């Protein structure tokens, strides 16, 4: 959709006639959401936008502004659609069982995501190194000795009682030296930023200093369980600083790509991080958020150091406004509905129920080869046709807002009643039922192709290319993807009542399998309940691959996998959740299933009881090849193909699985890729205008 957005810009004055061919009834791919019973939001997973998603935010801010400018006010402004989130909670296994919760508040920073970058803001590793020193300085000044922050001892005067005075002076001595270290770090930060590249080879002493600082922090933080996680973060920051200096990365033309063959934990340990730190909640959270487990196997964490460090640096030092941004409704409602409406107003056509089945290519040896490799045909299964051959109207109004439904509107479809009765699943890779087949020919029906399917679908829809082109084949085997799982519960009591303390944190590094979850109470008012639940909580995680991949005719595979997720979710609610929501359990230790809000009851019917009540909630296994989540394993970067690649002269690709400049399964990577695809076709936007494409 980012490519569509760029190519349909009014600045192009209608040069491009654009048609979007979409499988099923809704846009969004892995980011699609739908509205289920009681207008509840049903997502593929848990979607949070990070504060450095500049390209994605820029596109959405433009979209909302354009809709408002045309008089379309139903969506409101973009600030109505996203809310800031500054708090994170991470979990570590406690030494005596259970879980220890670390709470972090990330302060807001100037600007908003998507703002033009200030002229002085340059993505450079020297800039990050300087920020790392700033971070360490902050940590030092926040250090507590015997329960009091050192910075508290800078005030004039002191206690007069002898013992207290003694202690005061002792701390003053410590404070004086801590302050001097902090000042030195501040100076170092400024100097590192100002230093020309030619000076960078003389920074070896920084390694020594970092080692000393690590020793000191270890002695004074590690023993204190309250500050241990701070030590772990500082330890990782120090290891990263040492690694950047020691590896010559500050001047290496490859930037962080120089680390792409290393696993991030190996690289951190090689540069001095402790085994404790690389097992910390902080690092586990990084893997959990990026689903960085090969084959979805939680025993095989695997993430490249280059992208891992790039992601960390951008996440912690590149955000603007807030550290994270929550969408106020489903991702489909907040992102894809406005994009759809705005694109339609620009003249873009949408063909729903078109499943791509083959990209036909002409290359050397084929009869229609004209001297250069190109896409000659596109074949689709037309899954359904509208009653009067009009364009399918995909949106419904829920709580006054245009939304995507969780199921297609069969009443608009020819034979829709029969399809509904027979349970046609237009989004299942294994349900191949169709109304007809349609083939488009190059020059007659199209000129250019932007291929926007997920990576997992490439072997299925581009079998000709994969068979002939070694690079494409290696891309499908070396760039890894995983299945994911998610479930959502709606409850009649809020988390505070159930024993959770603090704000509605986004939590990571929790118990497996559902290590990442979030209190989503803020979206419930946008749903359409008669009796509104007090909260909704979303859980998600990687899903281990089965021992053997499903056959193409295994139509029951998605349902079986969904059943696996359901069983896991029920067990999870009865198990690890006890540690964080003690109030959700009866005195006999059983989960209070009656907490769950059943939409049938909301509609006046009778609900289920006991564990069966979970059937009224929402869960899913994202197992379609196109829904598989891309991960970034060591060495895989060289097998990614760029949207700028010229192997096929009328084809470009778009998705978070391409060589987009930011190799992570996320909105920002997908949008950057879409911008590159647009550039490949029309030369706009300029590559320099894609924020952070040229990031080290």
């Amino acid at each position, binding site marked *: 959709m980012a490519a569509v957005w760029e190519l349909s810009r009014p600045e192009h004055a209608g040069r491009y006639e654009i048609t979007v061919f979409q499988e099923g009834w809704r846009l969004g791919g892995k980011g699609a959401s739908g509205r289920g019973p009681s207008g509840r939001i049903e997502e593929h997973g848990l979607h949070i936008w990070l504060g450095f998603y500049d390209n994605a935010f820029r596109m959405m801010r433009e979209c909302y502004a354009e809709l408002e400018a045309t008089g379309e006010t139903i969506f409101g402004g973009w600030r109505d659609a996203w809310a800031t989130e500054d708090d994170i909670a991470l979990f570590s296994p406690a030494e005596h069982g259970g879980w220890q919760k670390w709470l972090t508040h990330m302060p807001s920073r100037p600007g908003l995501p998507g703002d033009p970058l200030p002229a002085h803001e340059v993505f450079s590793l020297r800039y990050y190194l300087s920020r790392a020193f700033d971070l360490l300085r902050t940590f030092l000044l926040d250090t507590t000795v015997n329960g009091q922050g050192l910075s508290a001892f800078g005030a004039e005067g002191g206690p007069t009682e002898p013992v207290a005075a003694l202690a005061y002076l002792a701390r003053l001595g410590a404070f004086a030296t801590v302050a001097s270290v902090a000042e030195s770090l501040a100076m170092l930060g400024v100097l590192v930023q100002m230093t020309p590249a030619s000076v960078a080879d003389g920074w070896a002493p920084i390694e020594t200093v970092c080692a000393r600082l690590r020793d000191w922090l270890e002695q004074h933080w590690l023993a204190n369980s309250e500050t241990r996680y701070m030590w772990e973060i500082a330890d990782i920051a120090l290891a990263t600083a040492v690694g950047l200096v020691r590896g010559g990365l500050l001047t290496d033309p490859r930037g962080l790509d120089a680390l792409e063959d290393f696993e991030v934990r190996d690289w951190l340990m090689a540069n001095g991080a402790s085994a404790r730190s690389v097992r910390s909640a902080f690092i586990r959270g990084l893997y959990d958020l990026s689903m960085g487990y090969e084959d979805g196997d939680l025993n095989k964490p695997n993430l490249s150091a280059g992208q891992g460090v790039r992601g960390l640096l951008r996440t912690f030092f590149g955000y603007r406004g807030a550290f994270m941004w929550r969408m106020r409704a489903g991702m489909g409602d907040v992102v894809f509905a406005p994009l759809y409406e705005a694109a339609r107003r620009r003249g873009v056509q949408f063909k729903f129920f078109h499943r791509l089945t083959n990209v036909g290519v002409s290359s050397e040896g084929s009869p229609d080869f004209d001297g250069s490799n190109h896409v000659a045909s596109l074949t689709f299964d037309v899954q359904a046709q509208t009653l009067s051959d009009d364009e399918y109207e995909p949106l419904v109004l829920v709580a006054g807002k245009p939304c995507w439904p969780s199921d297609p509107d069969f009443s608009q479809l020819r034979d829709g009643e029969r399809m509904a009765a027979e349970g046609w699943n237009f989004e299942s890779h294994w349900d191949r039922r169709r109304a007809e087949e349609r083939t488009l020919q190059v020059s007659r029906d199209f000129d250019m192709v932007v291929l926007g399917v997920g990576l997992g679908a490439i072997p299925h829809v581009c079998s000709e290319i994969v068979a002939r082109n070694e690079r494409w084949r290696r891309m499908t085997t070396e760039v890894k993807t995983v299945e994911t799982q998610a479930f959502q519960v709606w409850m009649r009591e809020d988390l505070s009542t159930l024993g959770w303390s603090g704000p509605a944190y986004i939590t990571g590094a929790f118990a497996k399998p559902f290590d990442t979850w979030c209190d989503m109470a803020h979206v419930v008012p946008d749903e359409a309940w008669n009796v509104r639940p007090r909260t909704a909580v979303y859980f998600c995680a990687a899903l281990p691959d089965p021992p053997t991949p499903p056959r193409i005719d295994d139509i029951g595979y998605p349902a079986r996998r969904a059943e696996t997720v359901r069983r896991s979710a029920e067990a999870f609610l009865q198990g690890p959740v006890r540690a964080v929501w003690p109030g959700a359990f009866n005195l006999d230790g059983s989960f209070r299933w009656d907490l769950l809000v059943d939409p049938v009851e909301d509609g006046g019917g009778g609900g289920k009881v006991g564990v069966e009540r979970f059937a009224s909630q929402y869960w899913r296994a994202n197992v379609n090849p196109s829904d598989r989540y891309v991960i970034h394993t060591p060495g895989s970067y060289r097998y990614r193909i760029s949207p*700028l690649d010229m192997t096929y002269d009328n084809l470009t690709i778009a998705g978070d699985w391409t060589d987009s400049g930011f190799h992570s399964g996320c909105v920002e990577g997908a949008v950057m890729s879409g911008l590159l695809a647009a550039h490949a076709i029309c030369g706009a936007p300029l590559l320099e205008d894609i924020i952070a494409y040229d990031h080290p």
Partner: protein
Amino acid sequence: MTTPKSHTSAVQAEPEVADRVKRRPPLRAAANRTPEDPGAARHTGAGGANESVSESVADIVRMGYDVVAENIRQGRTAAERFRQGEYNIRDVPADVETLVKRMIDLARDLSTVSFDIAERVLRETAPSGRHSKAPVFYPAPGEHSHRAAHAAQRPSETQALMHVTCAFSGERRAVLRSAALTRPTEPTFAHEHISFEALQSTVGWRPITGVTCRAHPMTGGLQISVSIPDDQPAGVYSGVVHGPHQAWPLGVLAIEVLP
């Protein structure tokens, strides 16, 4: 998504073959990961920029030195009074003295590094052929001066060289004599694509062919492994090292098999 031929007036698209529209190659095909040089960027302004940078760095150093010196002095005083028994150590946390001492050492190290870099910034940014107008620094510890001078004398050519280590396998003892290898020009080169010609002896002994390499886990440089047959004659062996997809070699690897 398609763009029918009725709209072939696209900026980049042009009908080179009858009816079919082709993309034009982009101006570049990959991200430019080469780090920006914000320091250099700041120095490209109008005349006088170098002087202002020098002065501002000098100001920072001066100010920082004052703060550091004062704080270290206070810390030393406090630590010294503990040592001299002016305070009853049982009444204060046992680790305070150690803490203070370690912090003083750390502060000194940090100061040295800061001043090292500051001095080098000034040297690099000073206008060619002229002395810097920046005020002279406060005297620094002797070790600091020596280190800074030593660092400044490094030849700049070495910046393009890879860090190389070499390990030998087999019964024979051997040493690395020379391995000045430049980085391959391809920014995303794979270490396994670096190739080694057989190491030849000048006197015609049987060449050594078992040379492999992998990425050094800490430096990102090369970790070379040479397998030496047990009956390999003693002597100096050398061979050219090639990078992937480039015409000129990275350099020469030379080893000596010891008697």
